[in-house]
Every structure is written in structure tokens, then in C-alpha cells.
């Protein structure tokens, strides 16, 4: 709840990707006033913007570009307005995605590529543990919980360092075969590779941690 007593407004960006109903309802359960829309003005105005994403990197990028989602995200970030990417909505924040030999440009908010997990069993489907940093806001109270992942690709390197007065990005790692980024908190831009809206009570708590900061 904000100082004026109003619940923070959140737009879940509706651009035709996968299951968004759970994200809407989970964010409501986490205390937000949620609207599902692809309208750019609404997406700009909201206290927080959630960018979901399910499917192939290239397909998600294509759908996102069709509603000029990258521009909305970029403008929000330029103004310090919070954005949360989920699953492929996290992956497209990186420079590039490599799927089945196909390279697709991402939004490039963060450097690096998203590539296939190297593990005996892929996709990585199920509830896994994470290593969240001590100062993580997202994982406050839930750092020892498990979260639900369903993906074959992930960002596996982080090359962006803190510089000058900027706070260092808070990185949360998980492991499936090799280490990959489970979540990033970088100023107004946050993202999770797992699905908080599918991660039971722990996921609602995590979303609540994000909503409270709006």
C-alpha cells in the first residue's frame, strides 16, 4: 500500500504470449491493482510493468515488437519506473538469444546471450532452490524456498559491473547442469527466470516484495 492508501497499479503487458491469467491473479493476491492490457499509454503510466513471456525467444521478440514493447520498457527505465520480466520476458532483456542455432536480437538492456542449458535432462522443469544475495529485496523472507522453473534456455553469464554511484546489480543464481541466472535486480529493472505466479505461496510473497517497492 502506498502512502496515499492506494494499492500500486501494475500493468501486465498483454501481447499474445502464453498464460497471463495466473500472473494477473497472483499479482492481485500480492496486493497490486492489476490491469491486463497491450495499451502503450497504460503500460507507461502504471506504477509497475510486468512483461510475461512463454515460448520461443524469436516468437516472443516478434510479438513484443508488434506492440512496440521494447520502446515502452526502454522509456519506463529511462524514467526509473519499475519493470519486471518473467521467464522469456527475462530472457529478451539480454542482447541475444540462441535457440536451435538461430540467433535473435533481444532488447539489450543487459549484455550477454541466452543459450541452451547444458544438463542431462532438458527442459529444466520443476521446483528448484536459488542462491539469492543477502541484500536481495525480491527474495526477502523466501530465499530458502523453491520456485517453479520451466525452460530450456537461460542467461548463464553476467558481465555488467556496477560503476560510479550506481548500486551493484543483485544476482540470484540457480543450478541445473550448470549455473544460470534465476533472477536479476538491477535498479528499476528486475526479472525472474522462474514463474513466481506458479510458485505457490513463496511466489506470491516474492511478487509482494516487488509490489511493495513500487
Amino acid at each position, binding site marked *: 500500500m502506498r502512502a496515499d492508501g492506494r494499492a500500486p497499479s501494475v500493468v501486465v503487458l498483454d501481447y499474445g504470449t502464453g498464460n497471463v491469467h*495466473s500472473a494477473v491473479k497472483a499479482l492481485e493476491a500480492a496486493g497490486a491493482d492489476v490491469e491486463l492490457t497491450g495499451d502503450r499509454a497504460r503500460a507507461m503510466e502504471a506504477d509497475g510493468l510486468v512483461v510475461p513471456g512463454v515460448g520461443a525467444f524469436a516468437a516472443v521478440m516478434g510479438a513484443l515488437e508488434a506492440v512496440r514493447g521494447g520502446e515502452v520498457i526502454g522509456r519506463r527505465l529511462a524514467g526509473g519506473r519499475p519493470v519486471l520480466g518473467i521467464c522469456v520476458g527475462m530472457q529478451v532483456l539480454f542482447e541475444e538469444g540462441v535457440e536451435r542455432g538461430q540467433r535473435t536480437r533481444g532488447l539489450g538492456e543487459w549484455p550477454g546471450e541466452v543459450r541452451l542449458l547444458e544438463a542431462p535432462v532438458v*527442459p529444466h522443469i520443476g*521446483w528448484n532452490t536459488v542462491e539469492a544475495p543477502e541484500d536481495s529485496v525480491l527474495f526477502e523472507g523466501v530465499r530458502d524456498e523453491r520456485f517453479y522453473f520451466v525452460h530450456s534456455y537461460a542467461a548463464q553469464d553476467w558481465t555488467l559491473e556496477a560503476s560510479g554511484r550506481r548500486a551493484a546489480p543483485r544476482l540470484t543464481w540457480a*543450478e541445473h547442469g550448470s549455473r544460470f541466472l534465476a533472477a536479476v535486480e538491477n535498479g528499476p529493472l528486475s526479472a525472474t527466470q522462474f514463474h513466481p505466479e506458479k510458485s505457490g505461496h513463496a511466489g506470491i510473497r516474492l511478487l509482494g516484495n516487488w509490489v511493495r517497492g513500487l
Partner: protein
Amino acid sequence: MTLAVRVIPCLDVAGGRVVKGVNFQNLRDAGDPVELARRYFEQGADEVTFLDVTATVDERATTYEVVRATAEQVFIPLTVGGGVRSTEDVARLLGSGADKVGVNSAAIARPALVDEIADRFGAQVLVLSLDVKRSPRAASGFVVTTHGGRRETDLDAIAWAREAIERGAGELLVNSIDADGTRSGFDLELVAAVRAASSVPVVASGGAGAVEHFAPAVRAGADAVLAASVFHNGEMTIGEVKRSLAAAGVTTR
């Protein structure tokens, strides 16, 4: 590996109702799939599977409503299978709130359906269901059946699993027709044979009759274990299965 083994209850749904006997205490409506899914969520289920056993198109429309209502109230993954014949069926289920979609006989009739679904939605949404029977006719000793196990196909189950993964299946739900209903445990040889052939997660199904039956399926190679009647008739809870797994050294949530 720190990934937890998933315990998954499966509900047969038709016309918006649960069609197999449910015997829970204190349920407002034991035939309501949403209510039951919520109950299993509270018990610690890691995922819920709906099998749509609907016979008519009219009834099918109610399934989408059930999926939507469940996804809005139960914050764990939801898999829906049964009668999925096209990418449009998949789009509609995902749009209604399903996270994964199970495909069975339509993929047997037309294997390219697997490629089409994986290309459009990604492999991670596609669960290939196999109803498997032991048969000397197949090289592996396991043959794929249709019509709930009543009709044998010419497909070797292990060869079909390999082909489906090649085409883009992201998970295999392996149901033993021989073990189903026996309550004498999962077909461990089947689980092991599929595991050996599979690079994607394997869900073991069919035969669970006691909490002690689940850990051997995991040791045989299952990434997840699925059961229906033992949960619905109140014989055991999800929590009891998880405690039994944990006691056997299996990582659970």
C-alpha cells in the same frame, strides 16, 4: 542436482466435473475440479494435471472454463491433456490458463503435430502422453496403445518416445496400462527403459497403491510421479507421499 521430484495428482474431468470417485472430507463440492485442485495445492502438490475425458464438443467448452478458474486460484502449474488434436487446441488451452498441454493419440495418428506445437509454443509446453503395454511384438518389449489401452498400435513405445523427443516433446508422461489399477506399484522396468531413452523429464504413472510405491519409481528414473485414485479416495495425501519420498532420500519440495 537440487531439483525436487514432483508429486502430481491427476483429475479426470468431463463437462466441467470430476468424473472419478472422490472421497474427501470437508469438501464443499467434491465434483468441482477447481475446489479439488485447490485442495491438492494446499496439500503441497507440485503440479496438477487435468485429463479431459469429454465426449462432445459442447462439454469441451466447459473444460476451458475449468482451466481458467483453476489457473486464477491455484498458483502451481497446470497441465491439461485429452482430446488435443491441433495447434489451435493448444493455443486455446494455453490462453485459458494451462501451462503445459498433454498430447496422445493425435500425435500417434499424425506425428508432425508434435513439431508444429513445439515450433509455435516451445518444447516446454508439450507433454507427450504414452499409454504403454508390455508386448512381445515390440523390440523393446513395450508397445503404445490407444483407447485407454484397449487397442495396440504398431509403435514400439521406446522408439516412439525417442521420435517424439526428436520432434520437440518437452516431457514424457508414461502410463503403464498393465500396472494401472493394480495398486501394486509402478512398472519400474518401463520407467527405467524410458529414462534410458529420454533426454527430457519423465513422469511415471499407473499402479500406485501405497506411499512406498513412489520412491522406487524415482530410483528407476522418474523426475515426477503421478497418481489419481489413491489421492481422490483419500487413501493418502500428497504430504504423506512426500514424507515417504523424503524418508527414502528423495529430494522433495
